[in-house]
């Protein structure tokens, strides 16, 4: 790999052993994929070492001790508890104490304490064309597709990028790899879908299952709020490992169909109709209509201020069924705005909890975490959500039955304590 003089000096240890080691991993990574050189990244979404992963916190502390600070604007991904109000998620104290060590290490490194899967809603908006390094599959696909920033599916190496400012020029950082490969024409997308996440989540799940890791191009989509596009991407990155999609007339690299495919011919062309989305919802759901439920979770990915406003409006003066836990997940930055706006108070008076920094799947409710820390199992029997991502992971990791429905019906399900189908 061709390195600049500055990079060679860093690799030789002239800026310290820790930076040399971090850059060494980046170079090794680039060589594995035959990258020709490194690029300067403009932003990093950093892995939030979670207390539920063995040794993860200790590694972070050692890394923070060895490195002085990050060199690009850096936000942090989710934790395993609401660290502003740990009692809200019911996390055992020793796990919360361990997780809090992440916060001090991140502060030392100069990482913004966002602890979210939607950093873009916290103001992290990398410019079109800029190389970045990001974890969180739903954020990665958003940055690539909706903003036209350049990132691959980052993991633990994003921390090496944050301190060195470097990433190999490969994958979606190369223009030629950003061409669409598969064409999906969307037919009969439900008319009211722009107001509700479910159909977007279903569409994303169906497309992700079909393309795996390749680049889909979607046509005939309606104009819709940004939150719907976040939902669509999150689902594609759940059933597949899609990191980039183009939606003609909606995303910045696809004003036209020809532009989305960069002049190449689509490998496949498919039509997706409403029935295919209904089938996907039915296949993921294993709750029966009207079956009693004990958990509702909205906010996967983490909600925006507008989504919290809409739900608070809907729950104003209402009461959630006393047998139902109702979580609405968001980031602490958005929750703080929602507190200022008065939405949090309305939601909590109705009996819902506005949870920040985490979600059920990332929390101590994961069965493997309960077993490892000798905690009682979460005793969740039936969960209702509007998100395929939440449904897919809770099923196996928390071990509960799940029911997918529209956001509106999920709220109504919370009030009635039973699963209302879409």
């Amino acid at each position, binding site marked *: 790999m061709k390195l600049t003089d500055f990079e060679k000096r860093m690799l030789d240890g002239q800026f310290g052993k820790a930076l040399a080691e971090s850059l060494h*991993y980046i170079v*090794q*990574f680039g060589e*594995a*994929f035959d990258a020709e050189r490194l690029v300067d990244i403009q932003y990093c979404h950093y*892995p939030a070492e*979670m207390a539920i*992963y*063995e*040794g*993860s916190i200790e590694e972070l502390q050692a890394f923070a001790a060895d490195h002085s600070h990050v060199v690009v604007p850096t936000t942090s991904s989710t934790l395993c508890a609401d660290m502003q109000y740990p009692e809200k998620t019911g996390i055992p104290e020793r796990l919360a104490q361990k997780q809090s060590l992440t916060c001090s290490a991140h502060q030392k490194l100069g990482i913004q304490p966002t602890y979210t899967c939607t950093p873009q809603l916290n103001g992290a908006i990398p410019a079109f064309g800029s190389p970045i390094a990001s*974890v*969180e*599959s739903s954020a*990665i696909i958003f940055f690539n597709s909706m903003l036209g920033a350049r990132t*691959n*599916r*980052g*993991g*633990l*190496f994003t921390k090496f990028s944050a301190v060195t400012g470097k990433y190999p020029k490969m*994958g979606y950082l190369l223009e030629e790899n950003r061409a669409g490969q598969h064409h999906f024409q969307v037919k009969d997308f439900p008319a009211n879908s722009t107001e509700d996440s479910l159909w977007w989540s279903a569409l994303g799940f169906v497309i*992700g299952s079909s393309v*795996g*890791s390749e680049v889909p191009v979607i046509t005939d989509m309606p104009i819709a709020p940004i939150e719907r596009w976040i939902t669509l991407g999150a689902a594609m*990155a*759940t*059933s*597949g*490992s899609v990191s980039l999609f183009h939606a003609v007339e909606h995303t910045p690299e696809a004003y036209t169909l020809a532009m989305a495919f960069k002049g190449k011919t689509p490998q496949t062309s498919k039509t997706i109709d409403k029935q295919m989305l209904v089938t996907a919802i039915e296949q993921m759901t294993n709750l029966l209509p009207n079956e009693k439920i004990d958990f509702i979770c909205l906010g996967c990915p983490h909600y925006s201020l507008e989504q919290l406003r809409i739900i608070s409006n809907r729950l104003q003066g209402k009461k959630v069924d006393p047998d139902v836990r109702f979580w609405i997940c968001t980031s602490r930055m958005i929750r703080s705005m929602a507190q200022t706006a008065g939405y949090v108070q309305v939601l909590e008076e109705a009996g819902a909890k506005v949870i920040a920094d985490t979600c059920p799947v990332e929390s101590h409710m994961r069965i*493997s975490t309960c*077993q*490892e820390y000798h905690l009682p199992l979460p005793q969740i029997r039936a969960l209702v959500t509007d998100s395929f991502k939440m449904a*897919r*992971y809770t099923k*196996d*990791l928390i071990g509960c039955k799940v029911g997918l429905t529209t956001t509106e019906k999920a709220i109504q399900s919370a009030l009635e304590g039973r699963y209302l189908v879409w």
Partner: protein
Amino acid sequence: MVKEYLGKGVVKGCVTAEVVSIPHSFSFLGDVEMNLGTLLTGENKGVSIKNKILLFSESKGSSGGCVVLLTLVKKQLAPAGIVTIKMPDYNLVEGAILSNIPFLANVSPTIFETVRTGSQATLSIHRDGFFDSFVLH
């Protein structure tokens, strides 16, 4: 009969072990039980991936998969090698580099016609210009 499959070596290393064959996409988050190293889903449900060569078509799902792989390494429950049909997921390769797990990608999908869960195979990846391969015994 010895059968050889060539591919692109991504992470160096050599290992001989039993294979766990998953003829579709796979996610370390959600498809593996973290305390036991066993598969949670699909036709291999309950099968351990510990010290096995894990063969699957491609990665899917959360970018937390890389962290799950490293956690399995710490618990000594990780696979001994990884083979994929498609070009590998960047996220997963990061985990494989950090834990020195040999990784072979771009192998012909016909591998699923002969290689089954329980088959014995050798993975040899040198990345030195010679052929990197998966050899079924």
